[in-house]
């Protein structure tokens, strides 16, 4: 049985996205070990938490606040992951009703798998895009997490001089593709100011949590939302730009 050209195209995209994401895994693994987590703890996070932004958040907050910031790290990670719940709602009809398939799909429900699925037209291609991308990213992310953790373990002194800057730059990279709309950019600026002002007054981890109030305020009032004549102007339940994914019809 040969594969249709469409399936082949979807699989190629899945692999490209998997490779692009895998590159993040190295920096996550190295940062996690530098933050004091063991190689095993680092790998367990990529295996079971499996959501890049949340994993970077746990590591960043533990690095600055230590174990005392544990609850704040868990809370930030979970709030950052709420968008995966939204993606799950969109993926449910694509994945189908089988319960165990849904459990597996839920675990693979992240920005990348959702974006590739939503980029396809035909239901078959959507399903293939979701699963192929989820699996490609999962395999790549976990392999490079281990690699990064081992590298971080082997060269702790060489890398420690710039690792805090690496973590900051990683958050910039996760944030950058989400700033296209004015509303999001304003929320980002407000959140950064709130977090900065609170640094001297709140325990580590808490300034970031309080900064999320900027999202709640702007989200509830929906101020600064720019309506547009084009269909689907503000599909905020779709993930942003994904590395490795070619620019597509409906994001332009």
């Amino acid at each position, binding site marked *: 049985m040969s594969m249709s050209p469409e399936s082949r195209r979807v699989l190629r995209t899945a692999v490209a996205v998997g490779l*692009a994401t895998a*590159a993040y895994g190295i*920096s996550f693994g190295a940062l996690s070990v530098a933050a004091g*987590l063991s190689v095993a*703890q680092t790998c*367990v996070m990529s295996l079971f*938490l499996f*959501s890049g*932004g*949340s994993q970077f*958040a*746990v590591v960043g907050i533990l690095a*600055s*606040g230590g*174990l005392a910031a*544990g*609850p704040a790290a*868990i809370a930030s990670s979970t*709030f950052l*992951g*709420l*968008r*995966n719940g*939204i993606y799950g709602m*969109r993926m*449910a009809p694509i994945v189908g009703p089988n319960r165990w398939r849904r*459990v597996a799909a*839920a675990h693979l*429900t992240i920005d990348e798998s959702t974006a590739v699925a939503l980029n396809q037209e035909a239901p078959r291609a959507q399903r293939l895009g979701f699963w192929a991308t989820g699996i490609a990213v999962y395999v790549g992310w976990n392999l490079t997490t281990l690699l990064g953790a081992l590298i971080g373990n082997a060269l702790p002194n060489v890398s420690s001089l*710039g*690792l805090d800057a*690496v973590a*900051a*730059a990683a*958050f*910039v*990279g*996760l*944030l950058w593709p*989400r700033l296209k709309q004015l509303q*999001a950019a304003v*929320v980002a600026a407000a*959140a*950064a100011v*709130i*977090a*900065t002002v609170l*640094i*001297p007054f709140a325990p*580590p981890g808490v*300034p*970031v949590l309080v*900064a999320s109030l900027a*999202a*709640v305020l702007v*989200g*509830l009032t*929906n101020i600064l939302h720019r309506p547009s004549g084009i269909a689907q102007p503000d599909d*905020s*339940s779709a993930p942003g730009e994904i590395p490795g994914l070619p620019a597509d019809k409906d994001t332009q």
Partner: protein
Amino acid sequence: MSLWAVVLIASGASFVVKYSGYLIPQRVLEVPLVSRLANLLTVALLAGLVAVQTLASGSAIQLDARIPAVLVAIGLFALRVPFIVVVLVAGIVAALLRNFGVMS
């Protein structure tokens, strides 16, 4: 709370959130507020993390080599340089500034 507890609780919570998306009726998606909040929450938390990771040292604000490194990173992301290259360059910028005693 041990490090293992943080890792396992955060992992469990991540799965619960993901799976609950498959149980919640699709109608909820039609309430624009829900997806808007989840989207903006992600933006706010990431922006807060950028600020804290760049400026905080424990519970104090410390201006050091992280600032030029992050500015370089912003410039490179704007030029669409790949993630792994940008974070590497940011790390190298900070390490060089510190190594040559230009900044702490």
